[in-house]
């Protein structure tokens, strides 16, 4: 915080949610996780801006990009908002014991390296508590593969969770959301804001070096 009490060090948080309905409980969980993170960052005097990517709005474009290997203009902007953020909150519904196919198809469009060292808060929704391990057997390995920093706490919300309040104790959904938000805020507070991605077209070495590297 500066002397006059204004918040500094703006962080950009991208939220990727792959719910299918409107409104969707997946989006609801994503919003709550984002709000908890922003509040926990504010406690530390750090301002944050949140940018939402709703996968459903890009559904056709995701399939087209999978086939043509290039994203259309709107999808390209959505991908850039995720790969350029300081942190990612990723939330998917649970379908047939894993993330939704559309969610994975979107993630498949991210270039290798684009989430390197990026803090990721994972979340999932489902019909019953019995799917909660989707966080640890599907989402966590996915983002670990992408070399992201996956937070220890992931948040799974079953339908029943939306009807339980703080009275349910520390294990209730609001408590888990707050805890995840605090973890992400603490991680972000200890890091510099991410520099703007450098031009992917720059070659590291002069061509002579490329030639010599083969000797």
């Amino acid at each position, binding site marked *: 915080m500066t002397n006059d009490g204004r918040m500094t060090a703006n962080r950009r948080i991208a939220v990727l949610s792959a719910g299918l309905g409107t409104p969707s409980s997946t989006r609801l969980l994503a919003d709550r996780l984002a709000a908890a993170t922003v509040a926990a960052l504010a406690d530390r005097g750090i301002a944050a801006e949140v940018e939402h990517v709703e996968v459903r709005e890009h559904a056709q474009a995701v399939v087209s990009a999978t*086939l*043509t290997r290039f994203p259309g*203009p709107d999808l390209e902007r959505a991908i850039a908002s995720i790969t350029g953020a300081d942190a990612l909150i990723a939330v998917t519904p649970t379908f047939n014991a894993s993330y939704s196919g559309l969610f994975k198809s979107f993630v498949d469009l991210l270039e290798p390296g684009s989430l390197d060292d990026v803090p990721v808060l994972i979340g999932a929704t489902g019909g019953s508590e019995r799917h909660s391990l989707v966080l640890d057997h599907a989402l966590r390995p996915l983002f670990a593969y992408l070399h992201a920093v996956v937070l220890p706490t992931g948040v799974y919300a079953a339908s029943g969770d939306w009807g339980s309040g703080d009275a349910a104790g520390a294990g209730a959904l609001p408590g888990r959301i707050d805890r995840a938000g605090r973890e992400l805020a603490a991680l972000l507070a200890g890091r510099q804001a991410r520099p703007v991605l450098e031009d992917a*077209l720059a070659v590291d070495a002069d061509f002579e070096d490329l030639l010599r590297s*083969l000797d």
Partner: protein
Amino acid sequence: MTGQQMQFGIFSVGDVTEDPTTGRTPTDAQRLQDILTIAQHAEEVGLDVFALGEHHNPPFVPSSPTTVLGYIAGRTERILLSTATTLITTNDPVKIAEDYATLQHVAGGRVDLVLGRGNTGPVYPWFGQDIRQGIPLAVEHYALLHRLWRQEVVDWEGRFRTPLQGFTTTPRPLDGVPPFVWHGSIRSPEIAEQAAYYGDGFFANNIFWPAEHYQRLIGYYRQRFEHYGHGTPAQATVGLGGQAFVRPRSQDAVDEFRPYFDHAPVYGHGPSLEEFTAQTPLTVGSPQQVVDRYAGMRDLFGDYQRQLFLVDHAGLPLKTVLEQLDLLGGEIVPVLRRELAVGRPAEVPDAPTHAARVAALAAQQESEAATV
């Protein structure tokens, strides 16, 4: 063929694809004969270049481009024969040096080639290579090819090929001038760097991605061309691909091409024709629409030397392809030639030809002799 500012032509992938409107798939034999007919017709309608792809897996037929191009050379007079692309990673550079020097002699110098890495995974192991070594392979193989064509006796040792001691490729390049080389790439700055380093041409296929994507790659190539001391960025040699389907009436073109687009191997069942034409250089419509779109390419890429169109893919029948060539040669290319000549800065080089390169070599030798 000297003094030609821009060359216009076609490039063929050589795919064997079912015609979705008739359910008919050509045999390999038919498709190869069609390619021969298409190339000869390209010359008849006044196009300057015919380029052929190289593939080693069905449903593509051209695995041996110099055989096909050698036949076309014997049946044509003017048209320049090129490739799209020659696989610099999985072919032996010694064999490329021999094959294309031979083709140069057969075709009286009407030969150049576009080198590419190839993106079909299994082709690498089938030819004893590793796709993860794609860039180093392209770098080492081309360095050897470049020497084989310029140095009589070569001693060489590298990582990927058996060493050579006292080796001379035969035949030597026609008139002592190797075929002009373009380096093709969709997304690798290293290949643009390679083209710039040698002062060779750079070819962007400009088909599957938005033009803006290639714009950055070509801008980078032009900048590095200057860095390596070959001239100003505007003096670099740039070729572009492109894609069009034309009928005199715009709506007829859209109606006729749509089933081919919707079932095409690469983009079929994905984006709509309208999305794809908005996002990539594919233009489906009247000759004027194609002229407008492609006359605008130099605003994105700078004045350039070669424009090739893909016209014979996705199962389009031979008759249709020949009609496309009639429209291309009759109504599109002559207008593009005129329009792109207007305001072309004097420093922009003409398209490369064997005759011009022989003349340049002679001039260089003369000036060297004069200074001794």
